[in-house]
Each structure stands twice: as C-alpha cells, then as structure tokens.
C-alpha cells in the first residue's frame, strides 16, 4: 500500500517538469551564485580582482610619476587618472572606492624628509575594499618613496645630533632599523572619507539592513498580492469579472495599482519604523526619499506582477517567486552588501531591482547626494517598472483564457 502511494507521488512529481526544475536545477543555480558572490570559484591561487583606484597627481614631479607608475604595475590595483574635483565627485557618487591625491610638494618632502603630502579620500561604504587597498598602498608607497623619505629624515637627525658620525655607521643603524619595512609610521598618508561626518548621516550598517531587507521583503509581499489574481482564477471571480464590462487590462491594472499602493505603504512603514526604533534620518531629504520610495515601489510592484503573469497556478508562482526573488536579492545586495562581492558580481548586480533601490537609498542616507544626482537611479527603476508592466500586460492578455480554462 505504502509503496503504491510512494510510486504515485513520485510519478506525479516527475510529471510536473517545472517542479522538477525548481527542485534540482534551482538549488544548483543558487549554490553557483553564492559561490560567485563569496569568491569561492576559480583555482586555489585565489588571485584577487584588481581594485580600481582614482589617482590625482597634483605634484607632477619625478617622484610622483614614479609612484604612479609603480602603483599601476601592481596586479591588485588599476589606476584611473582624473582631475581632483572629478575624482572626488566620482567617489562621492559611489563609482570608485577612493582617490589617491599626490599633492604639490611631494618631491620636496621626499628630499627634505618631511611628512609626505599624500591623501587617500575614500567611500566609507566600501570598507572591505578600502582595507585591502590600504594594505597594498602602504606596502608599495613605503618601498618606493617612504624609504627615501625616512633615510633623508634620519640623515638630518644624525647630522643635527651626531655631527661627524661616519656614513657607514649611519647606514648600519638604518639597516638595523629596517627602514624599508612595511610599517606605515612616518609615511603620513592621510585618509579621509569623502562624505563629511554629520549628525544627520545614517549608520552604514543600518542603511544596508533597512534598504536591503525592505526591498527583498517588498518583492515577496508583492508576489503574494499579485498571486491574488491566481486565487481569483481558482475562485471563479476572474471569469465573472470578465463577464462584466471590464477589459482584461483593467483587471491587471487594478491589481497593479493595489500592489503599488501597498508597496508604497510597506516601504513607508519600514522607513518610519527604522526612524523610530533605529534613528534612521528619514527627514534629511524628504523629497529624495519620497521619490525614491515611489520609484522603488513602482519597479517592485511591476516586477511582482510580471512573476504573476508568467505563472499559471499559485504553486508555480510560489516556487518561481521564491527562487527569483532570492537570486535577485543575493545578486542585488539585499542579503550581502555588494562591496564584499567580487567585481564581476558587482557588475551583474545591475540587472537586479534590489541593486538600484539599495544604491538609491545609499545615495540619500550615506552619500548625501541631491535629488538631481539620484535621478538616474530613479530613472532606471521607473524604466524597469515600465518594461515589466508592458510585458505583464502582454502576457496577461495572451494567457487570460488559459488562466480561466486551465
């Protein structure tokens, strides 16, 4: 008896090709995705991806040129020369991790043994990349100009305090002190965040948690709300709606409108909660926040309806939405901050609604960008929403009879 039931259930399961795909293929895809996300692919050498660093050489001296060419020769760093203002703007907008500024007087400082006028301005939202970059920079700068600077400084010290000390003895002392080492003391690389600290700035972890989670949960909610359409099919009310003077598109647009309103409400509730409980500064730029919420809600609700338009049953929608939303959230930075992912994953992230939403909220709360600066991201979200809506309408019109008679 049990065997009969077992055989029947297995037969039923394998007759549903979509269920089979969701069960076996999707976990493989997810495993691959997370392996990529956490850099677990490739050979055992674990060769890291080059970090793009902006360079602004204001000294234009022999020493500064040597520094630039030595840094450019490193595997770990790819230098992108820019003017100072442009470079700072790009870092502020989150396009690059930071800019190394070689200020005027670098050559003189090396020759005089004084503090080197170098500065690294960086995006504090990309702390992990910054940590890696800092380590590479310190090592390289110390081995090039740092060594020269310390030698000069020590020679001056010996001359002032031990006049007449033989040169071979000075060299012996400097060799014993290992001035070519990687210690950064005395190098004087000033490190500053491009975003000025102010009392209204949000906590980086909080912004990531709120924006990432809010968008992921919103996707799940909208898929659920849109799924009501499939429930209406099962209940027969969809058919009855079609008996009325309503058009098929009226039904879909009505459902999309409801999903959009609920998406806006959900985002508002999440941000207000984050403000009340965690102190997220939601009033620092209300216009930008409202526009970003509207754009995100539109993109997410349209995407949810797109999933509904593809699925024929609640079960299909449930499986499909779980997989697609989890993948999109993983890729787009809802689950893990993008800056911890390899560069390739950061490039792939742009296909996800989550990416544009999260980056938009970063721009508001962390990068302090103006509405004008955030408009392109809002535009992308609106574009995603529009494309998804058009596809959903087309699919729904095409499939409505199949929906009724399925």
């Amino acid at each position, binding site marked *: 008896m049990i065997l009969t039931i077992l055989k029947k259930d297995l037969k039923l399961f394998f007759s549903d090709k979509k269920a089979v795909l969701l069960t076996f293929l999707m976990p493989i895809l997810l495993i691959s995705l997370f392996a990529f996300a956490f850099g677990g692919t490739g050979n055992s050498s674990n060769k890291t991806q080059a970090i793009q660093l902006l360079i602004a050489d204001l000294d234009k001296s022999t020493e500064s040129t040597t520094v630039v060419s030595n840094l450019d020769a490193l595997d770990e760093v790819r230098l992108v020369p820019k003017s100072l203002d442009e470079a700072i703007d790009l870092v502020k907008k989150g396009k690059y991790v930071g800019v190394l500024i070689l200020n005027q007087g670098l050559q003189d400082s090396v020759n005089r043994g004084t503090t080197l006028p170098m500065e690294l301005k960086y995006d504090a939202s990309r702390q992990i990349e910054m940590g890696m970059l800092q380590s590479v920079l310190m090592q390289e700068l110390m081995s090039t100009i740092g060594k020269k600077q310390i030698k000069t400084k020590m020679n001056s010290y010996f001359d002032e305090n031990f006049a007449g000390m033989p040169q071979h003895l000075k060299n012996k002392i400097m060799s014993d002190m290992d001035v070519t080492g990687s210690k950064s003391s005395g190098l004087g690389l000033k490190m500053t965040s491009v975003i000025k600290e102010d009392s209204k700035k949000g906590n980086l972890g909080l912004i990531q948690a709120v924006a990432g989670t809010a968008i992921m949960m919103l996707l799940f909610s909208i898929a659920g709300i849109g799924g009501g359409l499939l429930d209406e099919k099962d*209940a027969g009310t969809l058919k009855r*709606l*079609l008996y009325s*003077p309503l058009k098929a598109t009226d039904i879909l647009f009505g459902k999309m409108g409801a999903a959009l309103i609920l998406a806006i409400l959900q985002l508002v509730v999440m941000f207000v909660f984050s403000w009340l409980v965690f102190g997220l500064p939601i009033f620092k730029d209300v216009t930008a926040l409202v526009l970003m919420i509207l754009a995100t809600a539109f993109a997410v609700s349209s995407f949810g309806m797109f999933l509904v338009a593809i699925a024929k049953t609640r079960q299909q929608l449930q499986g499909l939405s779980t997989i697609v939303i989890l993948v999109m959230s993983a890729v787009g930075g809802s689950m893990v901050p993008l800056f911890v992912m390899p560069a390739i994953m950061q490039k792939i992230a742009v296909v996800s609604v989550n990416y544009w939403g999260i980056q938009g909220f970063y721009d508001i709360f962390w990068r302090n960008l103006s509405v004008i600066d955030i408009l392109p991201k809002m535009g992308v979200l609106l574009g995603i929403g529009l494309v998804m809506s058009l596809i959903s309408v087309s699919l729904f019109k095409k499939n409505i009879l199949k929906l009724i008679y399925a």
Partner: protein
Amino acid sequence: MMIHVTKLSKSFENIQAVKDISFSIEKGEVFGLLGPNGAGKSTTINMMSTILKSDQGRIYIDGNDLNKNQNDCKHLIGVVPQEISLYEEFTAYDNLMFWGSLYKVPTKVLKQRISDLLELIGLTERQNDLIKTFSGGMKRRINIAAALLHEPKILFLDEPTVGVDPQSRNRIFEIIETLNAKGITIVYTTHYMEEVERLCNRIAIIDNGEIIAQGTQAELQKMSRVKEAVEILFTEISTSQKAQLKELVPFNTNANPNKVSIECDVNKELSKIIEICNACALSIEDLHLKKVNLETIFLNLTGKQLRD
C-alpha cells in the same frame, strides 16, 4: 427575438467543443441547454456571454451583433457561472455592491436593487454576514443576485444548482420562475432533465458539441419517436388469450411469455387497457408504466444516458 445564434463553432487545440450550432430564443422564454458533462454547454454559454471568441458563426443579442458590439451586449446579459464566484471574505452586501458597481449603476439605485434582490432571494437578514459563513444553497442564491444588479434582459444560468440540497434547489427554481415572470429571458444549462422539465419552455439537446434536437418537450418526443407504454405481467396467459387480446389491443412480447408491452397514451388509455385485460379473464400480477421523459428521449436520440 432575444438571442439568435447561427452556425457557431469553437475548437480547443484538437478538440471541437462546439460544432456548427444554430438556435433562436424568443423574449421571455426559458430555454434549456441539456446535455451531459463535456457536451459543449458551458462553451456555448461562454461564447454567448462574450468571454470566449467563436471560431465561426454569429451571435445576436437583442439584435446586436456580439462581435461588433460587445460592450452593449455585456449590459444586456447577466451570467450566473457554474462556480460560486464571490469573494468569501466580503459580506453578501459588499459582494453585491462590488459586482453592481462594475456596471456603473448609480450608488443610490444600486442600493435599492440590492435591497430588492436580497428580499427576492430571502437573504435580507444575512446581508452583513461574510459569504464564507453561508451554506452552499445560500451562496448559490447570492451568486444569482450578483448577476442581476444591472437588470439584464437575458440571464444565463450555467448549472446553478450543482451541489445544493433539494430544498435550496426548489428555492432557486422559484427565484428563476419569478425572474422569468418579470420578463427576463432565461438560458439554462444543466444535465438534470427534471430541472429542464420543470423550468424550460423550449429545449436544445446538445451532445459532443452538436445540437441533436430542439423544441418543446412534446416536439422532442415526436422527433425521438419514443412512445409511452404499459408493461403488464400476467399470472398466466394462454395462446388463445393472447390472440383474443391482440384483436382488442396491439402489443409486443418479450422473453417472458407472460409479459406484454402495450404502446399507449398512459394517462388516457390505461383504464381502458385494464378493462380489456379483465374482459379477456387475465389476472394482472404486475404493471409498469413506461412514461416518456427527457431522459428517454435523450437516450433514444443519442444512444446514451444523460449522466454518462
């Protein structure tokens, strides 16, 4: 003429659900579409109620070509679907308000119509209860009311009594009869022949997507050539008695030598036949009336039972 259908056909992939059917329905008629499950009744209703496009043929609703004037046709018809198509989490009143508002009935008018319809279906007291708390029969009644809020001239009822108890079924019949008395043309699909016999003026018998016969029940009986009969089992009948009986009334015999079958109008001729038997000194052990109904007509026309 309220509905005129000519040469209507519809296929789903390789299955031809409706094959070249034609019929007309006059104003105020109750027209029955009778056929077994899968015969093509619902497909025909779905085409007439605009949600399914026909492959061929034309449908005219109160003179309007359905293909050209779909929106006007939608206002002329009300459809009671086979499923209970209501929002379970809404109250009866809210459901009716919602379905009525889709036809842009002014709120004040709609409220009055809801009140009247709730009265008609006997659910005024339960109007503020959630649909999910209703019995199957009550849901069926609200299902009918939801199709009447825009005051359609034609009401399509697609198997409206599926799964209801006999008492609720009778209540639904009464509602339909009341609506018809008010001048609404009714198109009724079912596979229960007793429902058609009770409600319908004219009937179309549909099987495998084709209309096999249509007309009044008497006309269908004529077409099917099925005649009423009385089967009589005698205690004993001798050869001479058989000959005597045959001279007075023609009969057929079967495997049982003591049993005869006499074709007649049962209501008019039964007493006369019994008198003849008595005159022939035949003692009747058992008597069975074979009346003609739609079931027998259907069987005769299609060669299968209605509920096959």
